[in-house]
Structure formats: structure tokens, C-alpha cells
């Protein structure tokens, strides 16, 4: 008899939906169906039984083909690479558990590596802004229970965080928001009419690259100061109207995404959005939140935070001190400058997201990729080590976009003999210890 596992945590995006129901075969080996998940989340579970899944480590041969090797061989090769390299980039971490990260950091400290996560090409600019000006924020539950003004700025949850709107930000009825959608006013600020814009009460089409100016104008309008006739294509009357409406909110929130972090101005866009939020707290209650995308990237920032005091791009190569400097210790810059001697990628696919030049640089270095899937990065790696899917085949702690930690749930066994991230990293760590005790690789 197939059985249903309830309250399963979705392993896809930063929303970490915790209400999935997964049907599992009698022998605990196959996922038969997924309820409540969005299309992308359901696909993460379907991968579990995908034909052609790699179940043993593979090593690239001189002719470019792959040869299956044992876990022990892969662990030995990886440990030797890490010990030999004077500076290794250990990048990724967003699809694994915090427990695995912790072991990875232990290794990184021993071998003098750089630990970076995908914030480096994502909400890194938000983190820089928060390092500069702080951030007034809240949990998603507060949004659900209190928010009556919601602004989506440069983000498109309809596609990137498909259940965000129904679980937290637009439709749900909460303790103080019994009217649900009807009790909320939804704004969408974007240069394109997105599917999120379709759900909004008001769509503000902004001229591309004028986010900073419009946010600044809203601050100006909130203080009742004079504005030019239009800002970023938005007439001043509209700006005054919005500013007034935001001041009259009971509880407002701004959600922002790559439209702010990766357009002209970058961290300065976030900086002024935070400052607008701060200003609005002089009149009412307002919060702002980054739409963190990749599942547990928030957790990586947290673990790096409590172990080293920085949220990403942590350079441990000096061995006695952790350093963090955007542009200096960030992955893309390190690769572009050819500053690392080896690459260790885990639980994220830089091959699909880094600039081409950075990946060309990476492809010329000894590279190990740890990932359950074949992806762009495994294809330029010397070794690909498959592991169990975190949140599907093994549990572990992950952090939601609002930094709420959630223990994920194992629903099926991993394929026979496939290691988890934690098991693999523990073995690599042990091998590194052995090599260091022998005086190096």
C-alpha cells in the first residue's frame, strides 16, 4: 500500500512551503505523487525517480568521457585536491542542509579555502546594503496576519516563488487580515507587465534603470517635499498618491528581487528601498524583505554568520582570520582574476549562472562537483560526486527567506549506496585530516 507523508518541506525555493503531501511506494523507494507543491517544487520530487540518474561518482577521462569510480576514490582525489591547492573556491551550499555546511566550513578552515554561496550572484547586493544601513523586516507570518499594503518591486513571485502569494502575501486570510485579498492593496513596480502585475491592484510601470530615482521620489513625497513632473516615467501626482497611501497603511511590506539587485545602482537600490521603509516607520509599521530565491541560501548566510561573522564570500585562506570583501573574495571576481587553484562546487550550479569568462577560468582548474543531478557544472568537472537529494532523501535544517529555520523531512530512501552530503563531507574531512597529518597531499 502506498503511504502519504504529510507536512513535507519543499526543497526548491526560499519560500520553503511546509504543507506538501507526498505519496510514497510501499518499499519506501519511489515517490508516486506530490500534492500542494507548485510545478517547480513537484519536479524536485519527481527527479528522485528520474531515469538515468547518476548513482556513483564519475571521473573525466582524457578523451572527455566519464568513467565510474568508487566513493573512496572520489573522496581521496577530492581531499588531495583540497590539501594541495593553496586557495580553493568552495562555492554553492544553497541546496544542502546547514549541518552539511558546517562540516564543509571545517574543511575549508583546514585547507585555507574560500566559502561562498549563491548570494554572490543574487542577493549579495542586498546583503551589502544591509551591512550599510540595516533592515527593518519581519517574518512571512506577520505579512499574512497583518499586512494591508504589499509592494512587489522588481520581483515576480508568480514565476519564481509560485506559492508565495497564496501562502503569505496576497490571498491568505490571517488573524488581523480576515478579508484576505480584499483587505490588502497590492502594488507591483516593474518595467514589464509580469504575471505578478496581473495580481496587483496597481501596476506601476517604471522606466528601466530608474528604481533608485523612484524610491528616492517616494521618500521625498512622504516628507511632503517638491518633485519634478515625472520620475522614472511615473507622474508626480501618482507618486504623492502612493506615498500617502503607504503612510496610511496599518502594516506594509516591500518584497524585492533581482529587478532591484541587478539593475543599475545595485546595492544602492536596496539601500534606498530600506531607507524608504525606515522613513515609513515614522508614520506606521513597514517592513521590507528580499525574495531569497535558491532554497537554503539564507541558511548558508546564517551558518557563515555565526561561524565567521560574514554572510557570504568568506575567505579563510589566511587560516587564522576570516575575511570578506565584495569584489575581492567573491567567486566571480576570484575566477575572473584566476586567483584560485581549484574549485569545489556543491549543491548549486555555477555553470548555469556565472558569467562565461568566470566559468572558462574555472574549467581550467581541478574541479569537483557534488550534486545529485547532471548539470552545467558537472560537465566541466574532473569529478562529479552524486549525493542524496536534501529534503527528499535526507533531512536537515534549512532557512526560509525570512530566516525562519525549518527541519526538512526525508520522504524516501536514497538509491542504494548513494551518500548524503553530510556523510560525504565527513569522509572528505577525515581524509583531509589524514593527509595533513602526513604532511600534505
Amino acid at each position, binding site marked *: 500500500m502506498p503511504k502519504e507523508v504529510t507536512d513535507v518541506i519543499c526543497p526548491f525555493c526560499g519560500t520553503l512551503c511546509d504543507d506538501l503531501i507526498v505519496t510514497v511506494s510501499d518499499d519506501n523507494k519511489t515517490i508516486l505523487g506530490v500534492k500542494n507543491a507548485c510545478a517547480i517544487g513537484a519536479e524536485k520530487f519527481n527527479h528522485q525517480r528520474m531515469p538515468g540518474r547518476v548513482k556513483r561518482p564519475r571521473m573525466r577521462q582524457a578523451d572527455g568521457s566519464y568513467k565510474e569510480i568508487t566513493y573512496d576514490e572520489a573522496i581521496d582525489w577530492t581531499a588531495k585536491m583540497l590539501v594541495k591547492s593553496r586557495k580553493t573556491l568552495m562555492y554553492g551550499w544553497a541546496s544542502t542542509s546547514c549541518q552539511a555546511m558546517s562540516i564543509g566550513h571545517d574543511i575549508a578552515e583546514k585547507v585555507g579555502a574560500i566559502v561562498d554561496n549563491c548570494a554572490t550572484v543574487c542577493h549579495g547586493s542586498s546583503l551589502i546594503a544591509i551591512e550599510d544601513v540595516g*533592515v527593518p523586516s519581519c517574518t512571512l507570518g506577520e505579512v499574512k496576519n497583518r499586512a494591508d499594503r504589499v509592494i512587489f518591486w522588481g520581483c515576480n513571485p508568480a514565476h519564481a516563488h509560485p506559492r508565495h502569494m497564496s501562502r503569505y502575501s496576497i490571498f491568505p486570510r490571517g488573524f488581523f487580515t480576515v478579508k484576505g485579498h480584499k483587505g490588502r492593496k497590492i502594488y507591483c513596480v516593474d518595467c514589464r507587465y509580469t504575471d505578478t502585475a496581473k495580481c496587483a491592484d496597481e501596476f506601476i510601470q517604471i522606466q528601466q534603470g530608474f528604481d533608485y530615482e523612484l524610491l528616492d521620489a517616494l521618500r521625498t513625497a512622504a516628507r511632503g517635499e517638491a518633485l519634478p513632473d515625472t520620475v522614472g516615467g511615473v507622474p508626480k501626482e501618482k507618486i504623492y498618491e502612493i506615498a500617502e497611501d503607504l503612510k496610511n497603511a496599518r502594516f506594509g511590506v516591500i518584497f524585492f528581487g533581482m529587478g532591484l539587485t541587478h539593475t543599475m545602482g545595485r546595492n544602492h537600490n536596496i539601500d534606498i528601498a530600506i531607507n524608504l521603509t525606515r522613513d515609513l516607520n515614522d508614520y506606521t*509599521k513597514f517592513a521590507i524583505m528580499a525574495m531569497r530565491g535558491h532554497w537554503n541560501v539564507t541558511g548558508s548566510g546564517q551558518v557563515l554568520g555565526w561561524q565567521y561573522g560574514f554572510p557570504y564570500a568568506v575567505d579563510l585562506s589566511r587560516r587564522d582570520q576570516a575575511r570578506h570583501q565584495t569584489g575581492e573574495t567573491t567567486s566571480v571576481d576570484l575566477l575572473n582574476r584566476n586567483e584560485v587553484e581549484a574549485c569545489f562546487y556543491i549543491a548549486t550550479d555555477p555553470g548555469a549562472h556565472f558569467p562565461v569568462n568566470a566559468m572558462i577560468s574555472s574549467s581550467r582548474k581541478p574541479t569537483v562537483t557534488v550534486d545529485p543531478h547532471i548539470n552545467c557544472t558537472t560537465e566541466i568537472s574532473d569529478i562529479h560526486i552524486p549525493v542524496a537529494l536534501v529534503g527528499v532523501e535526507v533531512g536537515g535544517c534549512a532557512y526560509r527567506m525570512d530566516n525562519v529555520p525549518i527541519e526538512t523531512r526525508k520522504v524516501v530512501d536514497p538509491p542504494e549506496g548513494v551518500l548524503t552530503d553530510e556523510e560525504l563531507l565527513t569522509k572528505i574531512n577525515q581524509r583531509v585530516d589524514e593527509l595533513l597529518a602526513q604532511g600534505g597531499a
Partner: protein
Amino acid sequence: MSEYIIKNGRVFDPVQGIKGDKKDIFVRDDKIVDSVGSGAKIIDARDKTVMAGAIEVHAHVAGPKVNAGRWYRPEDKHFDSHKTAGITRIEGGKSIPTVFKTGYEYARMGFTFAMEAAMPPLYARHVHEEIHDTPIIDEAALPVFGNNWFILEYLKNQEIENTAAYIAWILNQTKGYGVKVVNPGGTEAWAWGLNCLSIHDPVPYFDITPAEIITGLMAANEYLGLPHSMHLHQNNLGNPGNYTTTLESLKLAEGVKAKNNFGREQVLHSTHLQFHSYKGTNWGDFESGAKEVMDYVNRQKNLTIDTGNVTLDETTTMTADGPFEHHLHGLNHLKWFNVDVELETAAGVVPFIYDPNNAVFASQWAVGLEIALYANDPMRCFITTDHPNAGPFTRYPRVYSWLMSKKVRDERLNTFKKADKVISATTLANSTARSRSMSWQP
């Protein structure tokens, strides 16, 4: 069986009246015994102090707001952030050290335990993840209850039994160790941008007052007979004139009796009392209210307190008193971090520089010392810096020396740029007022 001898150390044990005698301590299987076998491992403690591990009763050392302080203040790593010889992990940060540094620094000072003073139930797992990664010392955490929707609802209906049952459930779920209350009602009001500055301000929607919350939680705490008394961060923290709010809150414990079979007598622990003992009407006519507050505490045997000593450092303030941090940000305009959490709590973080040249900060330094010096019963008064709010815990040696030596204290006091103002606003320099209450000092 593991045995060892701690040899040649100077042993201190206030309970047995041992004051620095040279003694050998025999240990078998983690217990002190009269003698051990000849194969015991010998630890040479020559010229060292041997004492029971010190206990930190109130510090912010693990959890979401502590970590926010860590990662949003890269500048805090500019100080003292190197790995020291003999240590296995990199140490970082000064006012908000990383978990590794937290464990090492406490251990260096002879501490073996620290209580994380505010665990938001929703973030309990985060707190425990950090506790797990903290080396050497033990840590536990107090979940916060003073703004919990269920608690507010139960207490409005005067359902003490339900309140107690709910507390028991939360303690079990979050693996918490006691009932912490931060700005009761005020933090819930902050979710709408408001606050409860007096204990009679109604909490929006919930139709209950901070006084009723404090009284009800004390009753529920005793109903359960928990190991610790209720641990209270009072309303109106950090404002001139707040000592009246403090006295009013403390009076709620009058007549309340501890109910347990292990000898705990106190029913209310009032934390970082320094921040709650101010007279005056503004920062211009700010004065110490330590004497008034401590006179009351000395009379009421069912109260315990900790000091919250200002150490005059650059530090990072952080509290589940969200509205206070917003207020503080309005005063110093440094970067403001805030997280409102559903059901219970809203934490804020703001960097803070206690400049000794500023008369108010220097007076706060004096108020903290006065609190401890006025205490007649040292067993009811704990030294804290409310780490990192009034200063980093690594400054304890300085705090101890200010408390133990009038000479050291006066040296500091007289080198303040505005020493005259500090002396007139506080009673610290007035040593005659001090002599009786200082009688317990060595």
C-alpha cells in the same frame, strides 16, 4: 573511570568559606572526591585560580538577532579577530563574537555556562544550531512569553492553568529553560508601530495590560514550579524617569510566594536593572535612581536582579524589545535592524558607542556599579553586561575590578571629561553612602 588532580592552585569556594587557599582537588568521573588513585592525571594549576565554573545568567549569545548583529556588522571583525595559538577554530568579532570565539572567551574567564536570554519560539531551532556549534561551554535558552498571542488571550480570561499548560508545551517544543518576558505587551504593540511605556497601557486588540501579563506569568510560573523564576525585562527600558515603572513592576511580586520543593524563594528576576533605574525627565536632567530601586529590592526577599553594567565600549545593542531599538536608532542614527515575528516578539539591533566623554553614558556606567554596590545580599544580585547591550561579556574583569576596588573605580570616574556632571547625577563618588552596603566585599 577517569581520575585527575588539580594541583597547587589557589582554591576559592564562597559556600565553604575557602578564600584562595593552596589546595589540591581530586576528581573522579566528573565528581570532586577525597582522594584518587596513583594513576590519576595531574593538572598543574600553580599560580592559577581554581573555582567552580562561573555562570552567565543573562547574555545574548545565540540566535537570530545575535547572528544578525554578527553578519550585518562586518566592521565588528576589525577588532580582535585572529585565531589564537592553540585554538582550533578561527575567532571573529568583538561585541558580537562568533560562536567559536564566544565559547573560547567564556572559557578563558572561567565560565562554563551561559544562558541565552531571549529565544523567539519560532526561531528556537536557530538558537539550538548555534548552541550546538559553540565550543567548550554549555548554553541554554529562555523562550520569550510576554507578547505571545495565546498567553495574552489566556491571561485576559484569567486562565492560569491554560497559560501554564501552554508554557509547558512551548518549553518542551523549543527546549527552553524558563519564562522570559521582554517588554510585556509593548512588543506586541510594536507590530503596529506602538509601545506600552507604562504597565497600565492597554495592549492593542488584546485588551490586557503589561501589569496583568506580569502577574499572570508569575502565577503560571509558580503553578508549574519551574526551576527558575520568571525573568523580566521591564517596560520603559532606557528612558529617563523609568525607575517609577520599575518599582511599579517589582511591586507586582509583593505577596507572591514561590511554590517548589527545591528551595527557590524568588518569584521574579529583574534583568539588566541598570537600564531601568533612571530618574529625571530628559537626558539633560538625567540622574541615577539606583538607590531608590535597590532599597526596594533589598527589602523584597522574593526578587533577584542582574546589573547590566555599561562598560563604555563600542558595542551592538540587541533586544526583543523592538520598539526600544527603533527609539535608539532615532537617537544615534546608526543602522537599524528589526524583525517582527508572528505570535511572539520583535527583535531589534542597533550598533552603539558608549562614549565615556558623554555625561549620560558615563552616568549609566555609574548606575550599573551602584546597583551592585547597593545590593545587601550578593546572592540575589548577579553581575551582567546584558552582553552585548551594555558591553561585551569579555569586559567582566574590568567590571569586577570597578566593583571590588574603590580606587580603580574612582580613577575611572575622575578621568571622565564630564566627571563633575556624572558625580552630581549619581551617588557613586559618595563613599560614605556606600560603606554599609559594601560590607560583603573582601
